[in-house]
């Protein structure tokens, strides 16, 4: 693996805004209100803010990890693992984190197919859709990280109508649903925060993309702004859902956002949820592309002989088969939960420990040198 990335393959610092943003807003946007309000009802938006603040802290940890690594070569997670823990354990840890990403890909794709099955086309074949979709993904990833970042930017632009759509709630809103404020105990709020990790996961993929971003100092500012934007989106989504649905109704609706979209009416179209679900393709595509690219890079790091072009095809085949093997909605839910726990483990526990290990290694290294 080359030590330096050529400027022709680098992306600008603004991509540190778009990449984490698109990775975080995903399929969870549609159904998370149902899960979060189970514990903290009308104070769920507080949980979103608190969770967001914690995530900002973890983002700081991630960026510190990467910056400290820059002087030793490539500032990404694979190099950190192999430098601190040695070749064998490093490869094992790489496998550990990359499996999480593979799980994310399969889970996301399958959840999207689930939504299409429920709301649009019940008879669509999962295999066929995954095949076509993964061919497009292959086409994009073979253009390199620049094309992927372009897709992230475009997806941000194309998803803006969706967030504007939620503003149509305001005429129907019952703001009294939000009161009384701060009525819940911290325990319930923390439970909601834990459930929210599933939504905020995705920013840690910066760990793998960081070497390709030029002007790291500006990139860091953009990364923080991107997490702030995500916090804004989730908080508004929660507030709008709370004022539109009554609590009992929310517990009964599995996908509150889509149910709401069903009732938006324009002069020329009704039932916007079908259009919104098709627009959500644009939130699916950058996720799968970036994750496949990361996994292909992981394979290249471990076994440099295999070219990314070929490992990509194998990875996509894996994703397609994984998606086709999951059959029922219950299995999808289970996979979502496994992914959330796995992700919470990684960002809340593993990353701070890694920072600690890196700091220890630096201290030991300095001690040994002097």
């Amino acid at each position, binding site marked *: 693996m080359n030590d330096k990335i050529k400027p022709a393959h680098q992306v600008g610092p603004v991509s540190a805004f778009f990449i984490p943003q698109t990775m975080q807003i995903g399929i969870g946007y549609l159904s998370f209100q149902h899960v979060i309000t189970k514990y903290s009802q009308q104070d769920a938006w507080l949980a979103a803010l608190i969770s967001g603040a914690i995530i900002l802290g973890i983002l700081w940890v991630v960026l510190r990890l990467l910056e400290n690594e820059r002087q030793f070569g490539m500032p990404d997670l694979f190099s950190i693992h192999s430098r601190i823990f040695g070749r064998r354990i490093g490869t094992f840890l790489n496998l550990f984190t990359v499996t999480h990403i593979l799980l994310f890909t399969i889970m996301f794709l399958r959840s999207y197919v689930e939504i299409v099955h*429920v*709301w649009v*086309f019940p*008879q*669509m*074949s999962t295999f*066929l859709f995954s*095949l*076509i979709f993964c*061919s497009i993904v292959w086409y994009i990833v073979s253009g390199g990280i620049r094309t992927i970042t372009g897709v992230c930017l475009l997806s941000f632009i194309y998803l803006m109508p969706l967030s504007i759509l939620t503003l149509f709630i305001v005429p*129907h809103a*019952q703001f*009294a*649903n*939000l*009161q*009384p404020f701060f*009525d819940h105990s911290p325990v319930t709020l923390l439970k909601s925060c834990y459930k929210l990790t599933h939504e905020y996961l995705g920013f840690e993929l910066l760990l793998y993309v960081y070497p390709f971003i030029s002007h790291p100092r500006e990139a860091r500012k953009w990364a923080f702004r991107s997490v702030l934007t995500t916090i804004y989106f989730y908080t508004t989504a929660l507030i709008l859902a709370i004022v539109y*649905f*009554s*609590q*009992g*109704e929310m*517990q*009964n609706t599995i996908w509150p956002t889509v*149910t709401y979209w*069903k*009732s938006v*009416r324009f002069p020329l179209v*009704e*039932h916007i949820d079908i259009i919104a679900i098709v627009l959500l393709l644009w939130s699916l595509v950058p996720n799968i592309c970036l994750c496949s690219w990361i996994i292909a890079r992981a394979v290249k790091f471990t076994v440099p002989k295999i070219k990314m072009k070929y490992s990509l095809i194998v990875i996509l085949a894996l994703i397609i088969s994984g998606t086709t093997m999951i059959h029922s909605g219950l299995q999808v839910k289970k996979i979502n939960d496994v992914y959330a726990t796995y992700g919470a483990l990684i960002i809340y526990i593993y990353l701070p420990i890694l920072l600690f290990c890196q700091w220890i290694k630096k201290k030991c290294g300095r001690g040994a040198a002097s």
Partner: protein
Amino acid sequence: MKQKAVLIAPLIALLLLSGCLPTSILDDVLLVEAEGIDYLGNEKVMGTITMPNYVENPNPGSAGAGLPTTASMLRHLSGVTYDGKSLVDRFQQSGQMPIHVGKIRLMLFNTAMAKKGLYKQIDLRNRDPDSPRDMNFAVVEGSCRKLLTSADYQTQIPVARYIQDMIEQNTEQNYPESTMESFMYAYYGDYMDPFLPIIRKQGDHIAMHGLALFKNDKYVMRLSENRVFTFKMLFQKFNQGVYDYEFAPNKHIALKNVHTDVNYKVKNGNSAAPDIYASVNVSAQVRQSYPKTLSKTTGPGMEKKLNKHMAKEAVQLVRRFQRKQIDPLQLGQHVRSYTRNFDGKSWPERYPNARFHCKVDVTIRQTGISE
């Protein structure tokens, strides 16, 4: 490039050969516009569905695909089934084309069905991703079947559209909103009960006949037409509608609403007898009044009389609700939003004891162009 061709060709073949998705071409399906449920007893209901007929007046000069120009599709189907059965499934066998429910406008229940309880029907509607959320529910006094299938209306518009237009028009006037959204909101929400308009067939037209108030999913009380304005005044802001006040025997004054606003305050929400304060501001015009009633001297007096009368009516209304232990005005929700650590479990017992105070402030903006 030749490798790419080798890859693309079977992909395309796979796409074209693999079974495509089942289509629902617009003019080859029967779109249900209204469903009516009449309760027969013993968990059996008479279900009716109506499909509009579009092709009675086709394009002049068009040959019409080999069918005679007056060809039409099925217009309505009725049959007996068990309570809770999706009517589309029940009548699919009789449909000449696939029957779909995505554009349904209306769902009607007769009073017997509403009295028995609608929970199965509600669950059915809520579970289906196809049903639009702006469909209207209504309770029918009489038989839904007769209402939906009779052919002696004055208007030739399909009956479902007629009813929906009528309900929507009334929703802007005196009646509160009763689409599926608001019904589900009130039904599933805690500390509130839903309500629906009542319609009935009067000869050759249909008319609104008051509001049906539910306790959870059962119809328990009817509100007559003249009380509906007071109900809506306490329920939401609105800016149309007429209130008729008889201030002396055979002397009426009609207030045409320009803007109504309501604000709630709650004190002692967790006590055994919470205090609910409602303050209503009504801004109105007068277009109809008993001659020589309104003048500069008697105008403010009339306003005071109106204030007192409307407040009294409001309090009486709420007392009736409390006696029946129903809460269509969502007062429980207001109490909850003003109380920390609201004791929800005991609310059903405390609700009849809640003290409701209402203050109405009527402003008569102007009284027309003659003295």
